[in-house]
């Protein structure tokens, strides 16, 4: 009897252990399918994270911004970023809001309070995973060009979630760009 109960509980646990990763996948697949695409300027760096293979650490180049309304915030609070597109087709921050906007595509981010009343955005895009051997090559080639390559990411954004679809150098996906260097 007790053994049957334990086994039933185990089956329930197994189910939850499947639902959680499946939910993560489903959420991202929805974004890829329905999200709006944006281009972001980035700078790559390459650390080593044994648990997640090799990736290119990327930073979106955007400094501290002011909040849309004059609101008091504390570090660690969530904010919602709304974008507009500049003449070259890159995304620039239009507004940072503390409440979910309606009718616009937005990205949920973490905010950090800065001294001059502005906030820094902690972007949810900070790494692009590549094949183990390719990531350091990408970074080395990039450094050899003394950082003057045009680097950007494409990401789809839908209901607060963003998913990177590719890292581009000189207009080529990084995987192909390595081969041309």
């Amino acid at each position: 009897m007790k053994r049957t109960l334990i086994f039933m509980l185990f089956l329930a646990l197994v189910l939850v252990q499947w639902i959680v990763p499946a939910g993560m996948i489903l959420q991202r697949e929805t974004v890829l399918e329905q999200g709006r695409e944006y281009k972001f300027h980035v700078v790559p760096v390459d650390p080593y994270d044994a648990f997640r293979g090799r990736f290119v650490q990327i930073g979106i180049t955007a400094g501290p911004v002011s909040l849309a309304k004059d609101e008091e915030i504390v570090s660690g609070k969530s904010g919602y970023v709304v974008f507009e597109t500049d003449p070259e087709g890159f995304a620039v921050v239009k507004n940072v809001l503390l409440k979910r906007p309606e009718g616009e595509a937005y990205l949920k981010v973490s905010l950090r309070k800065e001294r001059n009343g502005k906030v820094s955005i902690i972007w949810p895009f900070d790494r692009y995973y590549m094949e183990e051997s390719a990531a350091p090559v990408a970074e080395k080639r990039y450094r050899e060009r003394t950082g003057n390559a045009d680097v950007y990411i494409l990401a789809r954004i839908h209901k607060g979630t963003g998913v990177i679809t590719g890292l581009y150098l000189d207009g080529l996906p990084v995987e192909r760009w390595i081969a041309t260097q």
Partner: protein
Amino acid sequence: MNKNKAIQWLYTELPSLERAGIVSQDTVMRLYEYYGPVSIRSRRQLTKVLLGVLGAALIGLGVILLLAHNWDALSRPTKTALSFLPLLAGQLAAGFTLLRRYSSPAWREGSGIYLALSIGASISLISQTYHITGDATSFLLTWTVLAGPLIYLLQSFTVALLYLAGITYWLGLCRFEYGPLWLFLPLALFIVPYVRSLFKENPDGFRIRLLCWELCIILPIIAGLLLQYSVPGVWILVYSGLFCAMLLHGRALLRDSRNNAFYIAGFLGLIVVSLALTYEATWEAVDTFYVEGGLDKHPWTFWYDCGVAVVFLGAGLLPAARGPGRRDDFALLAGAMPLIAAACLAARYLGVPSIGLVAVFNLYLLVFGVTTLLQGLSRDKLLTANGGMAILSMLIIVRFFDANISFTIRGMLFIALGIAFLIANVALMRRAALKKEVSK
């Protein structure tokens, strides 16, 4: 000797005792009934468990590394499907263990640790496929919550060890990434029934000892991470309370002092904190502490810190406040330490110069050391006596190298101390001689 071994020894002796007519057959039967069967875990069984755990953990880690290579040749759907493979294998192994091999600790521990690792692997691999950002806080939280129930379902000790390390690491990340700190309470409470059941099953067992050592390492870390440092010098209260609780609870719960992790770690911690409080710089830092964390503090952090301090102080004072029993100066003095620290901190708030507080703690350590030494000698407990010697030697070494005290004063203090030691020694020897004569 641990209890199981003692009973085992007794059972081997009983037949010869019965033959010699020292105990009756009836007594022998009643002894068997009273102690019950002994579980004799052979060395071979332990080896089997260890090899099982090691093998499963290595395979689990190997699979993670292999998939972490992130093969470009694989498409996104393939990578996503592959992410579930380690999880599925782990679940099948655990399911098989539950149905067919539940009585084998090797299977329970091996499949438990493999499944626990594979949950982490699956989430990491999905993160890798979708370039999900490195939010380690939620990653670790999901992992520990999904793996935690295995502690109870599979009765897996290794998963429990991993879980404890996991929630501590999570707490650390939370402090720096503004995570939900309050969640730590249910996470910590979750493992309490398991620890209790282990303790009830066999308080001298190998598993409870290992777990105690892990707790001794992580408890001081947890205490440090829980604090918001909004109350100046609050760490003094928290750490003196924690180490006092570890020392006194450890002493009361587990009799054997040689392998008693809480007793040893609590004792050392208490001495280290007391020694730190014999420096003026420590007390002066109390005044400047408040300014450091100035930016970004909520008003609730002050009351939160007060709450944490009360909980830890309470834990330290509770065992000390328990019934009198046999007069125990060692326990009394150890239990007094958090109170003295709290009083000194209050005095510091009121502007008492640090040199006075330093004097209090020097005196405290001196009295504590001498009392411990004497109690050890009078009860013929070598470990306690050595503990007293350790306190005194540490105090002496620390003061010898204390650059803030002039050579003349240090010299005179040392000479005075030396004379006091010699007098005490002579008095002790006379007392011993007197006792001998009386007993003749």
